[in-house]
């Protein structure tokens, strides 16, 4: 089949799947299509390895596709990225300075659950269904059945937390989901050949001393499938998953490549991507938290050492209050007070804080300036 014919087939299926408010004549003429098993499901693979584009595609399908009596499986993977759950705190879940230096972006998804590291060795599977047909165990069975078919000796089990464990110990898959207006999606990761040292270096807290009621991740030791099944190729894995999905749900769908940035196929998807990239969504949606920590301050000339106490309240990613307790012999109260007050209303972010501090720093000189500078540096370090 030529690419344009395949595309028009997918477009046609999408348009039928989009029939929400259908007149009688409309549904009658297309009823034969509904009984055709091909339209009862689709298996799609995203062209893109951009985490925001792929998350936007999920949102688009969730919002626009009629899923009563149907299902869609979407396969996707991303260039290195950290993805936090809907109600999580990025400052406790991941190491933002390490990520910044490595150029690893942060994304917040709309489903719940914990924090994961994505890279090209991690496969994401999203199972879209109606709310009635929402069944995570059945979806995970697709994955474990496919793996056992590929490598019969493989010990893979889904747990009651909806993780998949290898050899009863190593997590190879984590799950999250979202229930919306009429539909639902359940997505999970699958570690094929991810960079485990990158994973462990980024999945650490950025800041000490944070107290919050944000949903915490449950850390687990992980493993890659490739380490335990060295001959298991990526394409082989995908093929088995597609086949098992079709078997489990009585479908005959071929894997179809799609471009999640195609506005004519997915009108409005670009706007969804913009929102997912925004600071307001990624950081601003963080549940309110307080941060309380000790700052160790030292000086060379004259040698001096003391600790300061820093306490901040952060709401919507912005600093609502800031209290700095610095010994008066180290720095005048006036100056520590100024540093606190310039932060109010600023984003909880070392770049914004540094910019706010610069005015205060400029007004001082000599030894006072040096101490102020050290205090600023210490504060920036604990802000991720």
């Amino acid at each position: 089949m030529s690419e344009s014919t395949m595309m028009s087939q997918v477009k046609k299926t999408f348009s039928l799947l989009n029939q929400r408010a259908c007149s009688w004549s409309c549904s009658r003429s297309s009823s034969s299509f509904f009984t055709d098993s091909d339209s009862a499901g689709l298996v799609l693979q995203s062209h893109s390895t951009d985490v925001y584009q792929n998350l936007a595609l999920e949102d688009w399908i969730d919002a626009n596709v009629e899923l009563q009596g149907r299902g869609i499986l979407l396969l996707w993977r991303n260039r290195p990225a950290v993805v936090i759950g809907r109600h999580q705190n990025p400052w406790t879940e991941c190491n933002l300075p390490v990520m910044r230096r490595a150029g690893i972006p942060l994304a917040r998804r709309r489903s719940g659950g914990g924090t994961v590291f994505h890279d090209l060795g991690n496969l994401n599977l999203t199972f879209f269904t109606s709310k009635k047909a929402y069944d995570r165990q059945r979806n995970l069975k697709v994955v474990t059945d496919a793996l056992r078919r590929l490598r019969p000796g493989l010990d893979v089990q889904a747990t009651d937390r909806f993780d998949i464990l290898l050899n009863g110990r190593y997590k190879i898959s984590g799950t999250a989901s979202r229930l919306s207006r009429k539909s639902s999606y359940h997505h999970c990761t699958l570690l094929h050949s991810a960079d485990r040292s990158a994973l462990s270096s980024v999945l650490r807290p950025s800041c000490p001393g944070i107290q919050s009621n944000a949903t915490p991740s449950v850390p687990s030791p992980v493993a890659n499938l490739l380490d335990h099944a060295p001959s298991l190729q990526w394409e082989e894995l995908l093929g088995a998953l597609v086949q098992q999905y079709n078997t489990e749900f009585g479908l005959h769908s071929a894997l179809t490549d799609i471009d999640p940035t195609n506005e004519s196929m997915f009108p409005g998807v670009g706007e969804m991507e913009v929102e997912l990239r925004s600071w307001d969504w990624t950081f601003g949606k963080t549940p309110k938290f307080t941060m309380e920590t000790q700052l160790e301050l030292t000086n060379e000339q004259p040698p001096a050492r003391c600790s300061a106490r820093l306490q901040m309240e952060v709401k919507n990613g912005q600093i609502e209050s800031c209290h700095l307790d610095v010994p008066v012999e180290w720095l005048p109260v006036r100056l520590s007070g100024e540093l606190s007050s310039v932060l109010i209303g600023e984003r909880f972010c070392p770049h914004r804080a540094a910019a706010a501090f610069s005015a205060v720093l400029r007004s001082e000189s000599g030894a006072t300036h040096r101490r102020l500078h050290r205090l600023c540096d210490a504060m920036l370090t604990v802000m991720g």
Partner: protein
Amino acid sequence: MAACWLLRSLSSNFSTVLPLLARSASLSPLQLTSKPYFGRTLASSSRLSAALKFTDKHEWIRVEDGIGTVGISNFAQEALGDVVYCGLPEVGTQLAQQDEFGALESVKAASELYSPLTGEVVEINTLLADNPGLVNKSCYKDGWLMKMSISKPAELDSLMDEAAYERYIHSIED
């Protein structure tokens, strides 16, 4: 091609749906008055308006003196399982009927919450921050989610009363 046209024309009907996901709940293109409605009709029917009304998304609203208290039904809290986090809107957020106003995260999933009526958020239940389980334990009383002013009282007529909601639950359970 006819199918493409169908897709495009249908997607234009989703203009009320797409912006809901493409913007945060605190930004609304709608210009709404925040004044509650103090018409005579409301005062005389205040006895009726204190009763619970339900949406097909399993939210309930109880209107008293022009303010609606919103929560989720027992059916919903049972289906959700243990709530571990309540994501609620900012006070002052303008909501149109059916707008997403937040999400409840439970072991089952992150489930969107939909506004039963058009109005403005005037209060949120701060107890839920440390005790999200109140939504399960006391969904009609201590587990209320938010209070809102009512801009369009007529919208109440589109909601189900308790008896109609019971019938609705039975119909979907079958």
